[in-house]
């Protein structure tokens, strides 16, 4: 799913640099990336999703060389192939849960919103245990429910890869486990791979593999 070879990245302003000689993620694999803040974990996610481009080396995602794509192609690639789960959910409070889940379809012409997609949104919500909150706005939901909704959103486009950036960081211990369970369960159900950035060490044993990012860091993240 992800294949990185001799990758180098540096912020234009200088200072922080990242070098990754080799990094792989298999199809359907659940990988946790750990490391202290500033070790370049988030930069890695940005590189994988094509938000940032490497200065050297090769980065292939789902078989495609990300740096060779055009801007528009990268956006479409991100939208279709990658799902995102953020630490602070990043739901829009002016949209209902339904519309938040369908949000990727609202923001791009690359995806067509049809009846099947709507049905899929509902099915995802039901599976995530927030079917009753489908028509509500995020401010009426608990934090755990919100992150469930965010997970549904990340999966609505049936991505091949889900990137989770501290997905459980803003949750209490109980919710952490349940949300992680849900994430694992849904990702497995969709047959997607999961790359989760976390510094929550208690959760690590549940991943297939753990990569300590300290090894790649050179300099300080800005």
């Amino acid at each position, binding site marked *: 799913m992800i294949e990185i070879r001799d990758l180098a990245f540096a912020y234009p302003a200088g200072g922080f640099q990242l070098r990754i000689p080799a990094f792989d993620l298999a199809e359907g694999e659940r990988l946790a990336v750990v490391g202290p803040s500033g070790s370049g974990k988030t930069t890695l996610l940005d590189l994988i999703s094509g938000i940032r481009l490497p200065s050297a080396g090769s980065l292939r995602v789902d078989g495609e060389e990300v740096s060779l794509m055009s801007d528009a192609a990268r956006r479409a690639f991100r939208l279709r192939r990658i799902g995102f789960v953020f630490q602070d959910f990043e739901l829009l409070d*002016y949209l209902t849960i339904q519309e938040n889940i369908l949000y990727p379809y609202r923001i791009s012409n690359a995806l067509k919103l049809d009846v099947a997609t709507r049905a899929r949104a509902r099915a995802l919500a039901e599976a995530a245990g927030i079917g009753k909150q489908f028509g509500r706005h995020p401010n009426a939901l608990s934090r755990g429910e919100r992150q469930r909704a965010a997970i549904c959103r990340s999966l609505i486009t049936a991505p091949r890869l889900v990137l989770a950036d501290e997905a459980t960081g803003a949750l209490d211990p109980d919710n952490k486990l349940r949300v992680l369970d849900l994430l694992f369960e849904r990702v497995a159900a969709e047959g997607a791979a999961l790359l989760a950035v976390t510094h929550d060490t208690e959760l690590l044993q549940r991943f297939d593999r753990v990569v300590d990012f300290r090894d790649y860091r050179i300099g300080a993240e800005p």
Partner: protein
Amino acid sequence: MSTLYLAWAHIVWHRWRSAVLVAAIALVLAVPATIERLLTASEERLAARAEATPLLVGARGSRLDLVMNALYFSEDRPDPLSMAEVEAIWDSGLAEAIPLHLRFQAEAAPVVGTTLDYLSFRGLKTGEGRVFATLGEAVLGAGVARRLGLGPGDSLTSAPSNLFDLAGVYPLKMTVVGVLEPSGTQDDDAVFVDIKTAWVIAGIGHGHDDVVAEDGEPGAAPRASAAIRQYQEITPENVESFHFHGDLAAYPVSAILAVPPDARAAMILRGRYLDAELGTQAVVPDRVISELLGRIFQIKRSLDAAVGLVALAALVGVGLAVFLSLQLRQREMRTAFRLGCRRSMIARLVLAEIALLLSMAGVLAAGIVLAAGSLADQAAGWLIGAA
């Protein structure tokens, strides 16, 4: 991409903020448009009537008061002149002279004492009933008739011009004999009577219970009964006892509409009133009203400048709202970008939202202007009346 959908969702979510914005923008748009409309309507009405009135003769004094009173039945009270002046104009052969007596009101409508020539001159025709034929009969403008729900056969009573005017101004109960077709002018809001009826209201002409009608035995002056009462209603039974003292030529007239057959006669007639020693003057209403409109136009220009400033302030306000909105939605912008949309999307969302808000404000403003427009005629009348 559902820019409008998302923009609309955002508007609905912030519905109170949106409503306030829409209302504010609508007002900024509607107020100057409405003022413009009202002023234009007033100007048109003022100008149309002034142009339709070739010459006005009145007592020397404020020309504006004379024109406002005689043309628009305002409550300005120019000094009266005498009926003799009317006869003098007729006798000169230079113009038709139409007397106007404007002093009284009936049910808040001006009572216009005049002759039938006024109705012909203004092209006023009765839609119902007939024109006044004798003392005590009144013809109503269409607006007055509608407002009071009166028609031929009904009656209405004049109001004393002044509560303290006890010296002879008795309310007169007048019989409505006709209603004029609507003309879209001040005539719609007036009550028309023969000028002699106006004199009866003024207490100059009056009736007696039973005057000894015999023309007199030789050598003996006929006597009149001492029992005299002031009538408040003129009926076929008592109309005969109504009479006017002295020479009608001395009776008061508020203004005279002079209608010369041609420009030459108008020039000669105006020439006759140039002498400042005379107590009378002839004015061309069109000129007086043009001066007035010139002044109104100047005021309007200052008003326009003020409105421009307000509009500018509103524009700055809207700009600020856009800027703040973009600031507040930085996070949404970042998320959307990460998910795979263009960076410009939020800007487009905000623009779509502004477009929607402006459209709604535009519709609301148009509604306000239209609503005000339907009242424009009335309001214009009011503006003229208050001028």
